């Protein structure tokens, strides 16, 4: 018993010393995403019942997977996040930012990440955390994650309840919809990224295609639109 107590003490000591040394050599980098719509931070309002004017377009759901995040310097990868899977949800503020522990001496000129989930993870069975299939981001009838989900309402949509629904995904094949995004950054402890939903809404056509819920050619095209709306806030 005494032996065990000594051991536990020793280990605790080692862990404290080790983490202190580690903390001295690393820095916390905060990555924050801000979905912007109508030139303001998107807020999801599910409580109030607003009467929409004929041209109003309301977004009431936005979720998106960011994965395989890395820092790049002169086109070389200098850091990558392990198990890098983040589900951003405009309804849950806490999901929109997270921090990375990066060695202090690392220099980088850009941040790179995937919108979506890589095909290896997509075929690897049940996962936990942000990848848990209970997060409403999983297609059950044809295995695969939904990478980008945007829904809302507008009188201009001639659909059931005037809804528009975009569920973009497709992990492999000709129309694999994952998109890589590279954004220039300076060595800074805070990286703020805007998700310019105004830009997305301008690129799509709510009248011609108000619904898109399966993988394929259209999902691929819309995913490319989605990848162009991530922008650094300076």
């Amino acid at each position: 018993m005494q032996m065990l107590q000594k051991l536990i003490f020793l280990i605790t000591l080692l862990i404290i010393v080790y983490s202190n040394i580690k903390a001295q050599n690393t820095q916390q980098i905060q990555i924050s995403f801000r979905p912007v719509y109508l030139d303001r931070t998107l807020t999801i309002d599910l409580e109030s019942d607003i009467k929409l004017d004929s041209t109003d377009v309301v977004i009431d759901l936005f979720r998106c997977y960011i994965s395989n995040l890395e820092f790049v310097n002169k086109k070389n990868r200098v850091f990558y996040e392990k198990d890098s899977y983040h589900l951003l949800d405009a309804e849950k503020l806490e999901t929109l930012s997270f921090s990375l522990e990066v060695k202090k001496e690392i220099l980088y000129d850009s941040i790179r990440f995937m919108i979506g989930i890589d095909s290896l993870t997509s075929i690897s069975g049940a996962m936990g955390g942000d990848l848990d299939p209970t997060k409403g981001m999983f297609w059950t009838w044809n295995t695969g994650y939904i990478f980008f989900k945007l829904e809302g309402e507008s009188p201009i949509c001639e659909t059931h309840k005037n809804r528009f629904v975009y569920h973009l995904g497709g992990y492999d094949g000709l129309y694999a919809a994952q998109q890589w995004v590279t954004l220039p950054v300076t060595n800074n402890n805070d990286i703020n990224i805007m998700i310019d939903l105004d830009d997305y809404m301008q690129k799509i056509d709510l009248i011609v295609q108000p619904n898109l819920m399966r993988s394929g050619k259209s999902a691929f095209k819309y995913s490319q639109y989605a990848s162009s709306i991530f922008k650094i806030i300076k």
Partner: protein
Amino acid sequence: MQNNFLQWTTIIVIVFIIMACARSIDLNPKKNLIFDVPEGWPQPVYNFSKNPLTASKIALGRMIFYDPILSRDSTISCASCHLSYTAFTHTDHDLSHGIEDRIGTRNSLTLTNLAWSPSFMWDGAVNHLDMQSLAPISHSTEMDFDIELVINRLNSNFKYQTAFTEAWGSELITGERFLKSISQFVLTLVTSNSKYDQIMRSEAGVEFTEKEQKGYEQFKAKCSSCHVEPLFTDYSYQNNGLAVDSTLNDSGRMLITKNSIDSLKFKVPSLRNIEFSYPYMHDGRFRRLKFVMKHYSKGIVEHDNLAKQLRGKINLSSDERVELIAFLKTLTDKEFLFNKSFTYPKSHH
């Protein structure tokens, strides 16, 4: 340098502790079980290292499998369409049915030897065993429910809080734990002790009858290129010349790949326990094996992408059909069909 030294010291100390604990791990009733691969079989494709089998997780999976709590109105369970006595499929129903007598568009598949299956469903819509049960849970003509709501239900159920704690070490019920538990149970549904298997293992006193032996020769000559031994499938998708059922218009694998080359292709099913898993084909159109024989010898429709093995007739005389059926019945594994550890878990109710 100093950093490195500390890291190594920590690792060495931890290894020492693990070694000291090794003896007590051995006695742990929740220890990882080894999945037995039958002699002469290929290695399974399921990655057990990501979901190591334990007795308590298998028991939890079995409890879930038999519980109608998964369906919206709590009326049907997995076992409603996958019955143990019929190799975990639903006999006497050509198409599967769900809550409120809603009828689906396909015949339920057998659940056997799933550790070897690289994909699931008649069209390969599901790419991993863990994800398979999500489909029937959400499908409107099956359980018509939602995984998130299933997890909520389980989280407020004392029986499951206890069972998840027992199996996973805490009462946290997540989609991942839920799905992996179901996988654990269905992975144990291994059928490898039919008369055929006993003969292949040269067990004393077991032999094919003359009729079965002739049937086996027919099988090897005319069926085994797709129904590859010992699993009796190659897991490919083939167009086997069935006339299109215009009430269903099911284009099969093409629904998934969106490629016309896959039109009317369906998974080659295993033939194990085929005697008990009627009706046959993806839409259950043949009620008896004799109709299947008739299809392959006389009924093939020459679709553009018909499986090449079926081009040109498979000639089977009426004697040969009888012999082939006699052989197919040697794939029946009674020990599997009546295995008590696969049936309704009485202890939990």
